[in-house]
């Protein structure tokens, strides 16, 4: 960490205040959702920020049916697999784009951007038909492939931005020390690209986790329906009532894995790995 002046308690306190401001700004609407999830049915519509009557009923309700649990399992599995594959494929492609010279490089970058730019709403129906023909409709693979596809552009761009910044000399130094290209990659480049890799992993995971459009269009049963889509199936007491209590509870529950994912990965986005690596 860049330490420009000595860290005194004063500086720490100043940062603590700043932290609190950030936390409050980030959390107010979230707290409202959390509060809604704990409110009883009668107090749902009162304007109080904090529940006047607490209940765990909403949470109990969402876990009593197997649908939500199944949706959670689907979400976790699909998002993890898609993230893993997208990051791996993206890393490979980004390395090639950033470090190597080959024809078709610009085309690949252009095509991936094109894919990121095309409105997904009009791709859903043809994709649906394709998957139906291939028997992938309503399966995990049916969601994993589109997720990888639409996450790759961001992954490639982000990762190549990081690979670019790594000095070429490091790789040459490693090779001169006798490492094969693969070893040079693993021992020298990959650690330096870590901030980019973990950032990409976080962003891709959140994208897969929260996607609604594909989840609702490419699934039809609990076999592969993920949580954002499952939220639309929560029953209120009638067709006109959105069950705010259970939806809020579900929203809180599905945010928790994200918190863990981010908490785990954000530690790896650290600075200073480049300093001192190139001598002279």
């Amino acid at each position, binding site marked *: 960490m860049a330490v420009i002046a000595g860290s005194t308690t004063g500086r720490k306190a100043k940062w603590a205040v700043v932290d609190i401001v950030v936390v409050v700004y980030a959390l107010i609407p979230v707290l409202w959702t959390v509060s809604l999830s704990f409110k009883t*049915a*009668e107090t*749902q*519509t*009162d304007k109080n920020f904090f529940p006047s009557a607490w209940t765990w009923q909403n949470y109990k309700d969402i876990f009593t049916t197997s649908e939500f649990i199944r949706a959670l399992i689907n979400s976790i*599995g699909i998002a993890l*697999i898609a993230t*893993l*594959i997208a990051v*791996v494929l993206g*890393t490979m492609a980004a390395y090639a784009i950033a470090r190597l010279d080959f024809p078709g490089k610009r085309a690949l970058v252009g095509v991936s951007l094109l894919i990121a730019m095309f409105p997904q709403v009009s791709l*859903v*129906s043809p994709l*649906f*038909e394709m998957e*139906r023909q291939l*028997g*992938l409709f*309503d*399966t*995990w*693979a049916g969601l*994993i492939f589109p997720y990888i596809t639409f996450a790759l552009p961001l992954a490639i761009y982000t990762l190549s931005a990081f690979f670019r910044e790594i000095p070429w000399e490091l790789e040459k130094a490693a090779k001169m020390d006798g490492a094969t290209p*693969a*070893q040079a990659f*693993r*021992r020298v480049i*990959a*650690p330096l690209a*870590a901030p980019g*890799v973990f950032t990409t992993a976080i962003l891709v995971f959140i994208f897969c986790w929260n996607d609604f459009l594909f989840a*609702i*269009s490419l699934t*039809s*049963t609990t*076999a*592969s329906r993920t949580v954002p889509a499952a939220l*639309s*199936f*929560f*029953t*209120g*007491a*009638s*067709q*006109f*009532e*959105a069950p705010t209590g259970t939806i809020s509870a579900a929203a809180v529950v599905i945010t928790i894995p994200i918190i863990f994912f981010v908490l785990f990965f954000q530690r*790896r986005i650290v600075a200073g790995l480049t300093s001192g690596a190139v001598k002279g």
Partner: protein
Amino acid sequence: MVSTRTGGRGLSRWRAAIAGAVVLTAVPTIAACGSESGTTINVYLSPEQNFQTVVDRCNEQADGRYKIVYNKLPRDADGQREQMVRRLAAGDTGLDVLGLDVTWVPEFAEAKWLEEFTGENKADAEQGVLKGPLQTAMWNGKLYGATKNTNVQLLWYDDRVVQTPPETWDEMMDMSRQFKSDGKPFRILFTGAQYEGLVVQYNTLVASEGGEILSEDGKKVVMDQGAVDALKLLKDVSTSGLTDPSMPNAQEQQVQQALELPDTEAAFELNWPYVYAAMGAANPDRAKHLKWARYPGIDGPSKATIGGFNLAVSSLSLHKPEAFDAVLCLRGPESQKFQAICDGVPPTIESIYTDDATIEPCPAATTTDKPSMATAYPMRDTILEALKDPAVRPLTVVYQNLSTITSKVLSPPSEIDPDATAQELRDGLQKALDSKGVLP
């Protein structure tokens, strides 16, 4: 293999991961095949709390000839339509019974996705059904759906505030003004957001004025004087200062919740009957005083727009005879009565309204009392009255287009200029009917 600080992107590790991923994705696919024996009838309907009980009962009745599976569709109507259209357009044979909102029948029928009800099925589906709901299941003189439930908006009020309910809009506005100057709750609540709910309100006003939006055959735009008068009324109400400030953004749930607030400023609510049960849960104190009346008319009783669901058989279904059978059971008199009492949806079969026989307690009931229409559905008489003189939304293949354009032109209601808006509607609707032009 060499482990690195990044936690192992070593070759064997990620090979194993890819293999694992392939296996994981393959397993659910494999498991999904080959688990059925016998005929399965897939019903696609919006989520209703007690419909599964109806399905179970009909499965018992089917006695092994087929098994009905209840596939839920999203809660919002647009989402339901989107799911069904996508799959029907792609020729998916996996849908057998479709739960259609009343405005979708012409569209689905014209796209050749529905199988016609004929012979005995037709007679069964039509028996004892009220005229208004039945009309929504027909297209071009043929019956394409069996009515499952209907719906109609009523006027709701707290009898501690309103002693005698108004019968016309003018009366209601006068009473509201009086309340306002007396410092009592006074607001008139209705759904004014830019969506189908606004079209429903407008349609009710037009029908009550005796006007017409489209011609009888649904091919030409009429927008006669009655329709223009309805525009004027809508504008007057919206600019009178008697409505809720958030009315232009209010859907059913906001309107319902506004009257549930303990310190509400509202006196009159125009909404579907589901609010009765909702008030019971949200504000039991006010629920004891919640009363209802028919939707206010203009010169006489109103013609309120009806909603509801019809069950249809997909023309792509591979088990049509069984599907028809299932449909007739799922919306039969017994099912409708059960769902009226336990789910609060008004039945379409007239005799149920006067049926006072009790049934077993509802699945989620907290008491062991046996409910009946009299105890669980006290507003049935008013609803029946309203259903006997209903307004139906324009029956046309391009209804969605009409609805989108109408809701856009009418929103916000306070900015309506009766003549100019009428002309705008005429032009926009005609283009929609000719399937020309771009929707907003």
